[in-house]
């Protein structure tokens, strides 16, 4: 058991024993340990490393410490900078889980249902990894590589996640059969970048990894009146929803069917678009 106090300590401990288990909030790991599905011996606890906590603003980017908790991300001060991430953080688990679960943990677990992941993929997030050998950066779609599979190599730690600060509306929605404490059946993040004239859509729980709905993005990006500021038409909203639904690659499992997931992703796409462009109460979606 190593309780690391600095990033260097943590990297050194991992270098000495690359099979050691990294522990931050424990909200995924300890479930496996309690069930007996995972035996741990050497643990490197990283929840007391100041460099992993908090966030910093670098121009038009935010460097989010991997140790930031869901509770901290749901806090209005942070959420104002990345609203979709703040909204997503508020949907995770319970108050108890949000107090200790971290964005780094969500990334490392790389579950198809990870609540941060659709937002991060929509934001073209970049993950910074560090080991005693140095550091590297990976875009999100190269970090999350499969179901519960990430690109971490032995001895590596997630240190920060970098996301842009976009000065436009952001929405996050999550569908589950209960009003609290649910694993997402399908989720969607929509972020608008007025400067870049793009609408970006991230999908969760509808593929082995978080997806972008690129065809839908291109379609709607070309239809929005970026200069005049008028909202998209009802026809555009419908078509957008259809293209997003088409982008999903869902499966049937005990939480939902592929048909249902595809359907709700389309609905969420329409609704988030309508919300983002202030059309709520006008066009019915």
């Amino acid at each position: 058991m190593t309780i690391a106090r600095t990033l260097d300590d943590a990297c050194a401990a991992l270098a000495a024993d690359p099979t050691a288990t990294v522990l931050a909030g424990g909200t995924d790991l300890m479930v496996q340990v309690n069930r007996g599905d995972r035996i741990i011996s050497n643990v490197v606890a990283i929840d007391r490393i100041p460099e992993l906590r908090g966030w910093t603003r670098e121009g038009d980017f935010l460097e989010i410490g991997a140790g930031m908790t869901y509770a901290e991300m749901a806090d209005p001060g942070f959420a104002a900078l990345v609203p979709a991430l703040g909204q997503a953080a508020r949907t995770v688990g319970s108050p108890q889980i949000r107090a200790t679960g971290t964005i780094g943990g969500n990334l490392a677990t790389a579950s198809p249902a990870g609540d941060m992941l659709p937002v991060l993929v929509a934001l073209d997030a970049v993950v910074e990894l560090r080991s005693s050998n140095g550091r590297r950066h990976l875009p999100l779609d190269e970090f999350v590589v499969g179901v519960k599979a990430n690109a971490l190599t032995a001895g590596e730690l997630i240190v920060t996640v970098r996301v842009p600060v976009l000065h436009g509306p952001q929405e996050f929605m999550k569908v589950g059969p209960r009003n609290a404490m649910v694993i997402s059946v399908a989720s969607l993040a929509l972020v608008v970048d007025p400067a870049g004239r793009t609408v970006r859509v991230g999908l969760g729980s509808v593929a082995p990894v978080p997806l972008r709905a690129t065809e839908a993005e291109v379609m709607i990006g070309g239809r929005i009146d970026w200069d005049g500021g008028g909202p998209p038409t009802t026809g555009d909203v419908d078509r957008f929803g259809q293209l997003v639904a088409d982008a999903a690659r869902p499966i049937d499992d005990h939480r939902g069917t592929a048909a249902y997931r595809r359907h709700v992703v389309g609905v969420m796409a329409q609704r988030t678009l309508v919300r983002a462009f202030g059309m709520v109460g006008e066009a019915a979606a």
Partner: protein
Amino acid sequence: MSAVRSTPTRGRTRLGGIGESVQRPDSIPKVTGDFAFSSDLWHDRMLWGGTLRSPHPSARISSIDVGPAVAMTGVHAVLTHADVPGTATFGLEHLDQPVLAGDVVRYEGEPVAIVAADHPETVRRALDAISVDYVVTEPLVDPSLAETATPIHPDGNLIRRIHLRHGDQSAADRDGLVSVEGTYEVGMQDQAFLGPESGLAVPADDGGVDLFVATQWLHVDRDQVADCLGMDPDLVRLTLAGVGGAFGAREDLSLHVHLCMLALHTGRPVKMVYSRQESFHGHVHRHPASMWYRHHAESDGTLVRVEARLLLDGGAYASSSGAVIANATCFAAGPYRVPSADIDGVVVRTNNPPCGAMRGFGAVQTCMAHEAQMDRLAAALGMDPIQLRLKNALAPGDRLLTGQVLTGTLPVAEVIRTCAEHPSAAVWSDEPMTRPGGAGRTADAGHVVRGEALAVGFKNLMFSEGFDDSSAARCELRDGVATITCACAEVGQGFVTLVGQITREVLGVDEVVLAPVQTTGIGSAGSTSASRQTWMSGGAVQKACEEVRAALVARVALTHGVSVDGLVLVEGRVESLSGSVSVDLAEATAEPLSADVVHRHAPTSPLDEDGQGDAHVSFAVSAHRAIVDVDPDLGLVRVVELTTSQDVGRVLNPVQAVGQLEGGAAQGVGLAVMEEVLVVDGRIRNASFTDYLVPTALDMPPVEIAALIEQPEPGAPFGAKGIGEPPCISSTAAVVGALRDATGLELVRVPVRPADIALADASAGADR
């Protein structure tokens, strides 16, 4: 939130007596963390126990090799079926379930071997080291095929059939009647009590064993355990450990025999605690049901005949399935006058997880169906659904489907009216979190539609069909302190509070001590189930106290040369109404008085081959009105308000009564919209609270209590009916009815899943 109003006290004021919201006597240890639940027990030198379970729903066992586990450091025992000292099987109705599987396993999770070791981690490793050679066989998982399939058990695949025929069987063979038909399904609900199965067994010097366990029925447990240990019942002593909820799932044995075997084998105390995942496999569930119905009525709404075919999946072992199907069948048509009926009720054996008692016991399933039918019928008749129910509402003097005439109270019409007429407090909120989807923020105001429905349900109280039920209690009065001994299992329902209230009411004492609840020194109190304990154990305590009271009054009368008639017990004194005698209770009972009582209810009869007979003691009816919000495009639901009226006989403790009504309604909401044990090919896919969803505080609405109808029930202590089950019976039906109202969809299955709404055929109706 509904306020709790205390009913006015009757007669002389007794502090802490009947009708008051007396605080639970165990509430302080429960809030300080001192209360000892069965999983909190600890004993010096104790070992930990664990169970190896079958990963297959159906297989033959060709060999079990425990060698590697036995050889592990820290392992003290590894036992299999060969080590069961007495009868190899147990069961509530039939001894059909093996203590440990021998040559065959019949459900996923069936116990195969047990281990005792020095640490839970060692137990886990030892269980992994046991190797069992399974020859997997094709499981029988479709209950509709069970009766004709190869028997999966020597007792056969038919557990019980009841074919109820009531009245003139050709009553519907005429023109001018309106008929509606439907097939309905109820999924497998789990009791999901929070306190895991757990206990501690301590080997005794006399060769016997002391078992501390959370359970609903101590003496029946004791008898089965003794039988399986091959021991005299006196050598098996059960003490009730703190129970973290039950709801029917602790009526059957779980770890009882296993723990005792390990303790006796190792000569050490052994503790076992099931994990949540194991718990889903370790107890019986509510029977999933498939039900076809056809209702016939006159054009004015008068019910003429009900036909139904009920199929319940009992899973691998019988448990109390026979009683459950009887209940489902007897109450299949609901609290309405039905002059003619043909109800075929069947419960079968499959390789699915075993099913048994859960709060509501068969009536939950049929209520969902008969209320759906009543709404269908109302629509076909062009009649208001509430008027249709009122028109047919049962009343005392009416005959039930079983031919039994209602001789007690059953205020069906009052329950319906008070519930229907109660003003709703539901508003439309601007707060996004209050819309379906909650924190997921999936809906804006325009995406939500609201629906409303009322449903009614009833069932019997207490055991039926000639079962000789009883409860034993002892009252001892010494130095002014009353001690009550009764083996009634407190599982959270609040019997421990009632004991004090009854005793204070009868004896006028202040201090009431409840003796430890155990099998030694007192007879059975029967099961904490079937809404029976207030009547049976409350009745036993009342009788025992009254016998002590009579003896005390006689003693004082003799001593003071007065007649017994003028003496009363109040506020710790024995006084004459004239004032000439006033004796301190403590002084008068320096020489103790005691009474032992076995309380029985009026006898019942078995059901004959047509399901006819005076099989039940008493009945209770309840109604719920549900208001729900639905987001039809996503299929997400939020229950906004539940209003209820219930037939309670007499309110003995208002705040506890409210607690039962609110808690039962939550389980009803759960079954309506989110709770289901998903079984695929005999395997449970969601054995955890991650995916077996019970309502959270964000899912459960306030429960408005419209009326607690108090019509004292003859024969019931203080006229009080049991109140535990009705709240979870009509609540499910009301919620799904409201969903139909909101969406215009048929919704013939519960729990209603989001896809059932979101992907429903658009042509199936859009009367919004």
